[in-house]
């Protein structure tokens, strides 16, 4: 009997791999010989989303560049848990300088490569949200503005986890941190504008900006792949749940990353040269409560009495994203499955 291929396959588009999918459609993570840019023995917490995100991104980048990659890392959890003397978990050329200068160091690396005519080796800078949206933003903006040939990756876990969960400009409204305690008349982080770094990156009109999530590996790897096809300043913002800081079960890391997207709180999109190109549609929309409830940082919203007004405000944020990015495909028309 002649075997025919069916484009449909159980989990082909969503799980890490699948024996039924054409090898070239499988993720880098499904490869038995994947690079493991971040290897075993690191000291990340159980269920660390950032460790996962970093391996996802760097493995994809290594695959895209034939492993010709140099990585510059900001101070933060990722740096501390990966390189405590005398052991490093990195299997990629890697450097850590400071907290706030990662983009500039990467610029220097890129310049050194360019000046010696090395066009094969590519540069990634990576930082947590603090090292990106707060202390690192000056250097990052400069790198963007000069259009230096660097992909900057922010692993956003929405607070300063390395120092014990303090608020950053990426901490969501109402979230409890060590510096936004869940007490008083407005418990948790204030409802402000937030610092929307992906939008700021888009405003720099750099060649490529994307958001990604550890829960959407195919999407993430495709974005890394596209970013590595391009030159100039590029930015990837990856949501990486932190079991410690979010007060969530270690097993729920990917689930929460997924819910952040499925609620509309963390829209996945791509932009180039200042224009939004596309957004990843929500497959199964969830109310924000489904995302908030499993996290102790939002527990005060569900106390007795519950803070339904705050939940509604968070829902409104999600709804706004859904509308802005057409996350339900209402304007574009539902894509065929």
């Amino acid at each position, binding site marked *: 009997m002649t075997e025919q291929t069916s484009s449909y396959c159980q989990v082909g588009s969503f799980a890490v791999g699948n024996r039924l999918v054409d090898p070239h459609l499988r993720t880098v993570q499904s490869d038995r010989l994947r690079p493991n840019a971040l290897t075993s023995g690191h000291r990340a917490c159980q269920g660390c989303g950032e460790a996962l995100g970093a391996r996802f991104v760097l493995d994809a980048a290594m695959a895209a560049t034939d*492993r*010709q*990659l*140099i990585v*510059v*890392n900001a101070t933060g959890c990722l*740096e*501390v848990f*990966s*390189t*405590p*003397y*005398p052991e*490093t978990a*990195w*299997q*990629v*050329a*890697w*450097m*850590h*300088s*400071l907290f*706030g*200068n990662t*983009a*500039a*160091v*990467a*610029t*220097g*690396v*890129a*310049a*050194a*490569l*360019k*000046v*010696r*005519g090395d066009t094969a*080796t590519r540069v990634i800078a990576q930082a947590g949200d603090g090292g990106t949206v707060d202390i690192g933003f*000056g*250097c990052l*903006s*400069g790198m963007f*503005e*000069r259009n*230096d040939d660097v992909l900057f990756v922010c692993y956003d876990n929405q607070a300063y986890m390395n120092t014990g969960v303090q608020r950053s400009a990426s901490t969501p409204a109402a979230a409890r941190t060590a510096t936004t305690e869940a007490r008083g008349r407005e418990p948790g982080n204030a409802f402000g504008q937030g610092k929307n770094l992906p939008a700021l990156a888009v405003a720099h009109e750099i060649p490529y900006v994307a958001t990604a999530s550890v829960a959407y590996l195919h999407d993430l790897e495709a974005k890394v792949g596209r970013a590595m096809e391009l030159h100039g300043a590029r930015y990837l913002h990856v949501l990486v749940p932190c079991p410690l800081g979010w007060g969530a079960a270690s097993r729920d890391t990917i689930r929460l990353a997924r819910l952040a997207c499925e609620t509309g709180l963390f829209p996945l999109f791509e932009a180039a040269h200042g224009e939004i190109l596309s957004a990843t549609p929500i497959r199964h929309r969830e109310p924000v409560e489904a995302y908030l409830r499993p996290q102790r940082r939002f527990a005060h919203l569900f106390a007795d009495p519950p803070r339904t007004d705050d939940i509604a405000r968070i829902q409104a944020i999600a709804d706004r994203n859904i509308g802005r990015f057409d996350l339900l495909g209402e304007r574009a028309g539902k894509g065929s499955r």
Partner: protein
Amino acid sequence: MLRQIEGSRAVAEAVALCRPRVVSAYPISPQTHIIEGVGSLVKSGRLKPCEFINVESEFAAMSVSIGAAATGARAYTATSGPGLLDMAEAVFNASGLGLPIVMTVANRAVGAPINIGNDHSDAMALRDSGWIQLFAETNQHAVDLHIQAFRLAERLSVPVMVCMDGFILTHSVERVEIPTQEQVDRYLRPFAPQQVLDPAAPVSIGAMVGPEAFTEVRYLAHARLLEALVCIPELAAEFERVVGRPSGGLVSAYRSEDAETIVVALGSVVGTVKDVVDQMREEGLKIGVVAVTTFRPFPEQALGQALEGAHRVVVIEKAFAVGGRGVLGAQVDALVSDRGTKTYTVVAGLGGRSIPEASLRRVLGEAIRGELGAMSFLDLDRVVVDRELARMAEDPRRAPSTARVPRDVRENAARIV
């Protein structure tokens, strides 16, 4: 080639002869002409290949240099005063990582009050950053020191700061012999880094080190810096062989062999002091001057020898530890006081204040006559200071609990001047 040239421009030419591959630039007075000069040489194609990067801050300037040096590129940048402090974290980082970056510091005061004039507060603030610090006396010296700095940095894998007085040197147009490219190429080989980011041989640079090894790391950095005390004279000698001019080294003495009074100073003021020394020698006074070219690592042995036999040492300092003493003065005192040599610290030239020869002659005369306090401020406007101290003493907001303090301050001020 002998040229009448602005100091900044001469340094830019010298830096270009050293073939840096990545130069990061952020404008700040009085350093700006240097990076303008290097930028011009890159734009004109005289310095190539070279990536000249206009960054958004001094912090970024040093950070770009860190990245470039770690990737095996010879990296250079320049800054001044507040700029040096802006990059302070990265300055420590560069030395901690052992990256042989060369940076010009066109020395400038640090505010507030904001002041763009020259003094050494910037370099002194980072004297313990693990960098080698060289101080140029003239623009010729600055040119020579930059060329030696690259060699020294790469030999030891330690960054080097070449300090030159802002405006006084950077903006002076004077006679400078600029070596030929051939000479510099003979002296300074292409950069062969001790560690490098290489995808083919990946390492992790910049590990986190805890208390179990941090002391050892620091000790090794110290040892490496002390090694520079041996390297610097060697490299200066080699420089003289190649370029034909003695320059650099640890300390430089002038008419100090038989001197009873020796002035010790950093940077361009040494030239003025030399003229004063000549004048006072003509008056029959046994006086000389020793310039500290290498301030970090501190050349204890060389300076100690140079000061041997002096009855008194007057340290002219363009910075001081507020609430403490002179930085250089304290170190000199520690070096010679047990020989019975009296030391004086004269704080001078702060924030671009001129150091007139007459004032120097006066203060040195006071030292010789034993009339000078251990620490004094050259040309301090006593009228202004006393008036202000008096006002403070009478300020009712301060009066209740600190009634005595202003008086102490006044007494103290009177003692040290």
